Structure formats: structure tokens, C-alpha cells
């Protein structure tokens, strides 16, 4: 009976196939429709403005939903939702990869980092960088190690610090990956394995890695020393431990010339000259009172200054000159800094506070190079403050806060407002909110992905 039915079905399909194909046996038909051509420039032309028309220059945002494992990717050209992906667990943080192609979806408590491919990237075609635009995708590349916490990136590398876990005696580790590692689902990237856990920080410098050290008998999970490591295939070998200590180390950053770590007694500065590294300390200035210390550091490759935060006090740190100056960002009494970064291709610095204001500072630091006269001018100059919401801040959902993402391709910044589940686009030049987009979920974290424009003062 079954066979008879099967047979009947198959013969019917066969008949249909046969008739549809026999109709045009031995035939070939071609249908070509010409579409809108793509304008291209000569490769040698520096101006890429009207090159590669279809590639989003505004970039994309990856936004995670609160208490949810869903992350959504939005196209900023038109605000459209491109795709939503389910990761394994609720993300604790989002960060961009070195090339800003991938979002690191950090799931701290479940010991995992997943990667969302934003789909915008460029390839080095030797004489020009060729942009690509693809659909976003959840990458098959995953990092699984204990308590991924601090993520730091340079233009080419991302260092993921896994804190390890005291409860399960899992030691800390650092993985240093490139966008190519993610793209190819490689397992050949180098990993630094510690023997104890710590709440540490690491900065990748090409084949070197500067990473923190903690004494086994230390009372705190914070490290107090920094060591230099050199990569060999899949692991790192310790080259040296810097004698200069850094008590209760927290926060790190780097720029073209230096790598810095925040300590209770100042800022530990490592300078690199070729293959030679040297450590020194910029001591806390008189502006530091009580328990104030630098606990957060921000750097950009081409910015001469690092920015340090001690609580809500902002310091401009010129590491090479050993200077640390308080920056007046016209904060209110109760304001706590919750988002920060260089913006507008390094021309500006923005600060998001918990009172719902975005502070915009002009940055002049990179003009200082070699010019003593310019030292008179402050590196950071207050430009404007943008009020992001008039909502009652006490209605902020528990466990939520405003979140900031900064475009690396233009002068926009993006802020999530969990109070009304909106996404604000802030024009930093005009210092105003230009669009407000209503989200249909309570947002949690966000990160900008796309093709970065080179820093304005790139030499």
C-alpha cells in the first residue's frame, strides 16, 4: 500500500519534471538586465568620497536587549533593523573588534564571548582600502574562558582579559585576536595563561602584550605589577616584569607611543621604542584628594593625551611629558561618568553622565607635536553640553543606565535611553539630538561598527 502511494507520488513528480524540461530540450536562454552602474575612481585617487556608493558610511549599531539573549543590528544610513541574533546568554557588555567589523558580545558570568559580524569592513588592496558591505551575521568564532571582562583594542588587535574565578580556582587568561582570526574562525591566535585569577587588564602591541600581574597572596583581586610578553605561535612568553609597581591596578589604555595603567598612587606609563620598553610613574597631583585615584583610562592611537578618570574628575595625561592636568568639563555635583571616548575622528572627546547629559570637548592635543608654544593651550576645551532627556531619572529601570556609542566614521554619537527605550543620535558638531528612534525592546548595551575614517590628524 505504502509503496503504491510512494510510487504514485514519485511518478507524478517525475512526469511534471519531465514535461517541464522536455518542452525546451537542448535549449539555452539568457536574460540579462542591466542595472545602475557603480561609479569608481581611479585607484590612485585619494578621494574615496564618491567611491563605493553603496557602502554605508554611517556604519551600523549592535544593540542588546535587557535581560535577553537577543542582539539586533541596525543600519544607521536609514535606521533600519537588519537582523537580530540570539546569542547564548544575556550579554554583560558589547565591544567592537579592532577593525570595527565585529561586535564582541561578552557574556561574563557564563564565560563566553560571541561575535556578531556587522558586515562592514575593508580590505587592504595595497594601494587603497577596499570597502565591503555584507549582511550581518553571527560568527562561528567564540571565545570561551572564565569571566571575560576588560576588552581593549588597537587598530589591529583586540585583547580580551579573562579574569578567572576565585570560587572555582580558575586562573586568568588573555586572548589576543585580530579581525582575520574571527573571520576565519581561527584557533591560531595567541593566549596568555596565568596561574591565578585577577581583575586585570592587557594591552596588545603587535607581537608584544603588556599585561598585569598579581601576587598569589594578594588580598585583592586587583593586580599590582605589569609584565611584557612576546607572542610565539599560540602562546606568550614572559619577557620581563617591570620593576615599577602599580598598586591596585585598574584601567589601562594606549596610544601610538605609550601604554598606561591606573594605580592608586598615579599612572604607570610604559614607553615603547622599537623593541625596548621602559616603565615610569606619573604621580598623582595635588588635584587628587582623599581616596581619589585614576581608575579608568582612555586612549586613541593618534591622540597625544590619554584621558584618565578619578571618579568623575577628568584628567588629561601627557604621558611622554609626564604631565597630568585636571580638565574642567563643567560637571554638576551629582554627575557620574558612565560613557566616554574620543569622537569625530579624534577631534572631540565626549562624556556621558548619569544625569542624562552628553558633554562635548574639543581636543587640540594632537596639534602639539613638537611645538612647545602650543602647550599653553589646554588640550581639552569645553564645547557644549547636550541634554538628552527630560524624563524623570528616577524612572530609570533597575539595572539600566544610559549607554554611549561613538561613530568612528563621522561626528555622531549614539545614546541609548532605557527609560523610554529610545535610541538618540547626537550630532556633535551642532551639539544636538538629531533623531530619536523608538525601539520595540528595552535596550541594554550598544556598540558602533563600521568602516572607520582615519583620524583627522593622522600623519
Amino acid at each position, binding site marked *: 500500500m505504502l*509503496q*503504491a502511494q*510512494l*510510487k504514485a507520488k*514519485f511518478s507524478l*513528480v*517525475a512526469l511534471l*519534471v*519531465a514535461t*517541464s*524540461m*522536455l518542452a*525546451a*530540450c*537542448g*535549449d*539555452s*536562454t*539568457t*536574460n*540579462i*538586465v*542591466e*542595472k*545602475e*552602474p*557603480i*561609479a*569608481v*575612481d*581611479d*585607484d*590612485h*585617487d585619494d578621494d574615496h568620497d*564618491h567611491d563605493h556608493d553603496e557602502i554605508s558610511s554611517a556604519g551600523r549599531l549592535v544593540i542588546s536587549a535587557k535581560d535577553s539573549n537577543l542582539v539586533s543590528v541596525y543600519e544607521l544610513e536609514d535606521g533600519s533593523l537588519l537582523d537580530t541574533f540570539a546569542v547564548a546568554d544575556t550579554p554583560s557588555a558589547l565591544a567592537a573588534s579592532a577593525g570595527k567589523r565585529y561586535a564582541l558580545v561578552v557574556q561574563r558570568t557564563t564565560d563566553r564571548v560571541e561575535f556578531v559580524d556587522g558586515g562592514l569592513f575593508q*580590505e*587592504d*588592496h*595595497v*594601494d*587603497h582600502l*577596499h570597502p*565591503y558591505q*555584507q549582511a550581518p551575521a553571527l560568527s562561528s568564532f567564540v571565545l570561551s574562558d572564565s569571566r571575560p571582562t576588560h576588552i581593549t583594542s588597537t587598530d*589591529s*588587535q583586540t585583547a580580551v582579559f579573562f579574569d578567572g574565578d576565585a570560587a572555582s580556582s580558575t586562573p586568568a587568561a588573555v586572548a589576543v585576536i*585580530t*579581525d*582575520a582570526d574571527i*573571520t*576565519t*574562525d*581561527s584557533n591560531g591566535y595567541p593566549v596568555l595563561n596565568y596561574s591565578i585569577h585577577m581583575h586585570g587588564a592587557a594591552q596588545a602591541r*603587535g*607581537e608584544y602584550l603588556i599585561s598585569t600581574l598579581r601576587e598569589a597572596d594578594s588580598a585583592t583581586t586587583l593586580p599590582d605589577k605589569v609584565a611584557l610578553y612576546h*607572542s610565539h605561535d599560540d602562546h606568550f612568553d614572559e619577557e620581563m616584569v617591570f620593576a615599577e609597581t602599580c598598586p591596585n591596578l585598574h584601567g589601562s589604555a594606549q596610544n601610538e607611543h605609550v601604554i598606561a595603567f591606573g594605580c592608586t598612587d598615579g599612572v604607570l606609563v610604559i614607553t615603547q621604542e*622599537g*623593541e625596548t620598553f621602559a616603565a615610569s610613574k606619573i604621580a598623582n597631583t595635588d588635584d587628587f584628594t582623599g581616596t581619589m585615584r585614576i581608575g579608568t583610562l582612555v586612549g586613541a592611537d593618534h591622540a597625544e593625551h590619554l584621558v584618565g578618570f578619578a571618579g568623575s574628575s577628568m584628567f588629561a595625561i601627557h604621558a611622554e611629558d609626564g604631565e597630568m592636568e585636571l580638565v574642567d568639563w563643567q560637571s554638576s555635583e551629582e554627575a557620574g561618568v558612565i560613557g566616554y571616548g574620543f569622537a569625530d575622528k579624534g577631534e572631540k572627546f565626549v562624556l556621558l553622565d548619569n544625569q542624562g547629559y552628553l558633554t562635548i570637548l574639543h581636543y587640540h592635543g594632537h596639534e602639539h607635536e613638537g611645538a612647545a608654544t602650543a602647550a599653553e593651550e589646554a588640550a581639552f576645551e569645553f564645547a557644549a553640553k547636550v541634554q538628552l532627556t527630560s524624563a524623570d531619572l528616577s524612572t530609570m529601570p533597575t539595572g539600566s543606565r544610559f549607554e554611549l556609542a561613538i561613530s568612528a566614521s563621522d561626528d555622531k554619537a549614539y545614546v541609548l535611553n532605557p527609560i523610554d527605550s529610545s535610541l538618540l543620535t547626537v550630532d556633535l558638531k551642532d551639539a544636538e539630538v538629531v533623531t530619536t528612534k523608538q525601539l520595540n525592546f528595552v535596550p541594554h548595551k550598544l556598540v558602533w561598527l563600521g568602516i572607520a575614517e582615519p583620524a583627522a590628524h593622522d600623519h
Partner: protein
Amino acid sequence: MFKPTLLTAAVFAALTSTAYADSIKGTVTDAAGKPVANARVQLMGTNGETRTDEQGRFVLANVNAGEAELHIEASRFAHRDVHVEVPAQGLANLSVVLLTTTIETIDVKASPLHASVTESALPVSVLAGDALKMRQASTLGDTLKNEVGVHSNFYGGVASSPIIRGLDGPRVLITQNGLDAGDASRVGPDHSVAAEASTATQIEVLRGPATLFYGSGAIGGVVNVVDERIPTDNSTRAEWMVQRDSVNNEKLAAGSLVTGTGNVGVYIDGFWRDNDSYSIPGFAEAEPEAEAKKGVVENTAATAKGFTLGGSYLLDNGYVGLSYGRLDREYGIPGHSHGGHEEHEDHSEHSDEHDEHGAEEDVFADLTQHRVQLLSELNFSSGFIRAVNTRFAVTDYEHAEIEHGAVGTTFKNRSHEARVELLHRTYQDWRGGLSLHYKYSDFEAVGAEAFTPPSETQMLALGWMEERHFGPWLVQLGARVERVTIDASNVLLPYLEAHGDDAHDDHDDHDDHDHGHGSDAEFIRVFDVSQKFTPYSLSAGAVWDFAEGYNLGVSLSRSQRAASASELLSFGPHIGTASYEVGAMFTLDDNEFVLNTKPIELEVANNLDITLRKFSGNTGFVLNAFYNQVDNYYYQQNTGLFAEDGHDHGDEHDHGDEHDHSGELPVYLFTAADVTLNGLEAQYVWQINAPFKLTLQGDYIRARLNGGGDLPRTPPLRFAAELAYEQDAVSADLRATRYMKQDKTSGLETATDGYTLLDASVSYRFDVGSSQLTAYLKGQNLTDEDARVHTSFLKDIAPLPGRTVALGVRGSF
């Protein structure tokens, strides 16, 4: 041949086919009357099958009265077909005599009709068992290169595809368990085939058009890699091997296990290979530069690993099984460097600030494939449908070519395929059935060397094949209709700054030429292309058993092939072939590429194959002659133009005063022309005495354009002699292969000198517990010959590996 009595018998059989006779009982003996144990006895056209016992006896139950055909096979004996008239009360005393053969005869699994090296109209060969274990190499082409009629397109040891009778690429289909391998190996010789030989149980080669079973991609032949990933029984057995090779320090470990319980069969395999760049006796380059390094072909290291899990549900009348396999491979792409060596070395000296991972010269490929297969065979004891064979595969393939630590080009092929074969019960003595075949491939190449645009190819086909014995004649007929659609929504036609040699002289004279040309904005024209083909294939074959132990096979076919997406739509630099490829969708109009307005024709192969075989006694031979007239053969015609390779080196590189085309590639345009391929293949086997066996073989192919000229990379005339020894626990062989000079070349191609390769191996078998182990020593190219392969795209930069000795142990239980 055709007797009226036979016809009456057939009609009678058809009329009474529902009447069961009791059984067929019989014995199988050799020519001396000694019983042959463990011979497989099949009742053809049904699902009845049994094996003989120690006394050579067998019983086939539930046999219909009337005409019956038995197929009997046993190791070291020639297969035999026996026709009997079965009376209603059954047959009790059938006596079958098998003749010994020197020709190893293994059935091909890829064909719905019964086929083996000695029995089919179309020439086939099978590499299996110990021979396969000894010949397995990290690439498929190199594994099969000693098979008659098969050459390798040797790509520096890191990739190779089999060339069947001078055809490869989109004309030779690589399948794994009968389903498309689902990789990117058909579009570039530097793309590795996603099938592994070390865990395979047999590899089958169908020489000549096999479009009937497989469709367009098989016009030149099929290579089918078979493994047991979906077990058809669950008796516990395992095989493993470890080997180390000296020429490239290759370490190989591979193993597979079949087991199960009750109705469930389980399969697992895994392999791991790792090798360094291989050694050679001389220089890698045919014309080495002053500072060239001797003794090694750089960037030919590879590492590969994979595993497969499978399970099947075993039924009384067949099985259904599912498997998952994953393959990872990373391999260097030799000769894939950009520009001169020295210039770059200079650079790396002071580039450590921005280059972290040293060895910036190296380009390598990183390949991953996921493959899910579902296979099923169901036999039915009543009704018109005798068996339903179903095969499904879903494959997700991706490989990235990584240059300077960054992904240069990514190739993706997401494909799925389904084939259902419906075999009918023997009707009027005809055996056969229908095959429904669907294949979908979403192919994408993104990056600097994405010479072909993203495309989707769909194929839907209906095939029909039948065979029947007429006395000593076996007649095989087949037909297939196909519909192939290729959709590509973004086919790019860039303005190509191609120029001839004359223009290039000019270029050298003007220092500022680099900056000047093309500074105006240009447009890339974009097309949405949908192409539909409806190729068909017809084939008729016959095998005539004209004398005891001999037969003559004749196969005549007309096959059409739809051009592949890359042959139609390519436009860009392809470093793997060191050419700038332009598809047939475009044409050249006064040194400028424009859209081709002429219709895209189907390729049509008219093939005649004649095979004469002797397969019993102490000597045996298989002689094939073929004549293949292909109309609208798509090939890459040299346009005489040069274009940039897409890796512009900018202005800071001084290329010196020399007039060379470094950073430039010759432009080849896919063009259709009529060609003729003909050739001969011969194999002679002589069992000199019990331990010694001599095999001689040779093949020759001639491939020319009817309008004059030769096709490129045509295999040279080749002879091989192998003396094998096998007695007790020891076996050994010594093999010499002579590749003659190839001077039938196409434009821009140079002649290649002949060379002789000497290989030898010794194996020793011993038992440990219930395991049978074999330790072996295998030497290849023992004379350390500097050999360049005419069929290789890398002929001038990568010779064959030098002398190598491999030591290995394999075992099974």
C-alpha cells in the same frame, strides 16, 4: 543471439512473476572444482542476495519461477553472470564455475546499475583496500594519479584534482558517497577538494561522460569517494593508520570505526595530517633567480583535520542513515606571492611596527566544510517498485585566502542536493529505473580575487536507465533531461585597463604613466543575469561476452553540459591560474570587453568508447580507445592582453628597468570552440607465479581544437610498469612510471620534459590479538628526479617532491 525461446521464457516469466518458486540451491567452484567460499550470489533485479559457505554452497530463497539471472562475485575471481530457467519447484543443483582473474574487480557504488572494471560498457576503475591505503595522499589528484587514464593537476602538493582523459575543472565531478563534494575545487586549481582519502573505503573513477547519473558537471567523468559514514550493517570493525613521510615531514593519523547494536549502526572517523613545505632536488623555479633558495618549495605546508559521525537505522529491507562531517584544512598557496621576493624582504626588515606575525609573504587558505548527509536504501518485496534509493546532502563550505594576516578572498559554497532513484522490478527482462535529481548551490566569492560574482545555480533533472541481457549481450540505455538555472544579480563588467605588449613598452617609457592613466572616474557596469539551460544526455552501451573470459564493451553517448557560473560570469584576476579570467558572457570588441550578444550555447560531447577485456587466467588486460568530439567546448582563450592582478603595489615599489609583467596577468576569455579529444588506455596484468605479478599500463591523450591548435595542460603519454610480490606476511612492489615529453602545447604554454619516477614499497603483516596490523615502508621518487608536471598550473615554480620515504603502520579488526 536473440532466441525465440528466450522471448517466450521472458513473457512467461512476466506472466507468472507472482508465483514463488522455492529456492535456488547450488555450489560455486573454481576451474579445478575446488569450492569457492564466501562468494556473493545476487539474484539480479531483486533484492535477493546470499554468500557461499565453506563448501561453496548457497541457497537463495523466495525465487520467482521463470527466467532468472544470478551475479556471482568473489575475491580474486572474475565476476560471472548466470542465466537460469527456474521451474516452479525450484532449482536444486546449480553449479557455477568461477574463473580466476588477475584484475581486481570491485563494484562501483556510484552507479544505480551494476558496474565494475570488467563488466560495464563505460570504463571504470576502483581504488580500494590496501591499494588505496598505500596510495592515499593529502590531495585527491595525487591519490589517483597512478590510475590509468587519470592524471593529477598537481598544485604544489597542497591541492590537486584528478584530470580524467585530459579534462578537469567543471567537467569532472567530484562526489562523496555519490553526492557533489560541495567545495570550490571546480573553479580553481589552488582550491582543495573537500574529500579525504585516508578514511575512504574506496575511490571510484568513471572515465568518460557520466552525465546520465550526475548531470552537467560530469561530462568528462566522475570521481566518487566512498566511505562508510552511513553504515549499512553494524558488525564491529575498525581501521586505523599512522604514517610519517620524509619529504615534507607529513604526519598522518586516521581511523574509522563501525559498530552498533540491534537495529542501529554507528560510524565515526577522524583524521589529522600536518606537513611542512616539501623538499626538492633543485630549485623551485624553472628559471631560478640569482638568490633563489635551493631544495624546497616554499609555502607548501598544510594541516588538516576532520571527523565524521554517522548513524543508521537498519531495517529488514534496507537502511536509513544520517551523518555529519566536518573538515578543516589550512594550506599554503605556493607561488601566490605578489611581486618579487627581494623587494618584500627589504620591507619586512623595517616593518615590524605594523606587522606582527612575520612571514608576511605567505598566502594561505583556511578551509572549513560542514556536511550533513542522509542516505537510504529501501527494498520492497512486492509491487512494481523494487527499491528506492535516496541521497540528500547539505553542505556548507567556506575557504578564506589569507594574505599578510588579513582575509584577501573568501569563497563560500552553500549547497544542497537530493537524488532519488526508483528502481523497478525486472520487467520484460529489463532492469533499471528513474532518477530524480536536484542540486542547488549558492556560490560566493568576496575579496580581492573574487573573480567570479555571487551566483545561485539550480539543477533539476530526470534520468532514466535500463539494462537487459540478450544472450551474451548486455545492453545499457539511458537518457536524462536537465534544467539548469544560473542566477547572478550582480555581474560586474568593470572597465578593464588591459593592454597588449606594445602598449606596455610605451608604459615603460613614461615615468608618470602610473599616475596618469584612468584618472577620470569610470563606471562598473552591473547586470542581473539569469541563464537557463536544458541540456539532455543520451547513451547506449553494450557489453558482448564473445568468448569465455573476454568481453567487448562499446559505449556511445551524446551529452550536453551547461556552462558553469564561473565560465560564464567571471571577470577578475585569478591568482590560482595566474590569469585574468573573463567569462563567456562577455566578449572582446576592439580591446574592450563588452557584453556578449551571441547566444550562450550548450557544450555537446559526442563520445565513442570501445573497451576490450580479458579477465580470466594468469593474464588479463583492459584496452580502451575513445573518441570524444566536443562542440562548443568552453576554454580559456588567450587574448594577448594584460591586466593588473588586483594587488596593486602602489608607487613605492620600483620594479626596475626590466620589461616584465609583474603585477600583471594575461587576460583569458572563455570562448566556445569545437575540440576533439581522443586517446588510448591500456592495462595488462600477468600473474607470473604465485607471489609475483607484473602490471603494465599506459595512457595517451590528444586534445586539439578543430580549428587548429592544442588545448593546454594536456597530460603527456605515460607508461608504467609495476612488479608486485605477495607471499605470506610480506608484500612488496616496485613501480616505474615514465612521463614522456609533452610538446603539444597551446599558446603561451611551454613544452615539458619527460621524467621517470621510481616508487617502491614493502609491507609486513602481523597480528596483535584480534587486530591485523601492517607495517610498511613506502618510497616515492627514489631517484630524486627533478620533475615538472605538464598538467600543473605551477609547472614553472613547483616541481614534484624529491625522494621521500614514508613509514607507517595500519591496522584493522
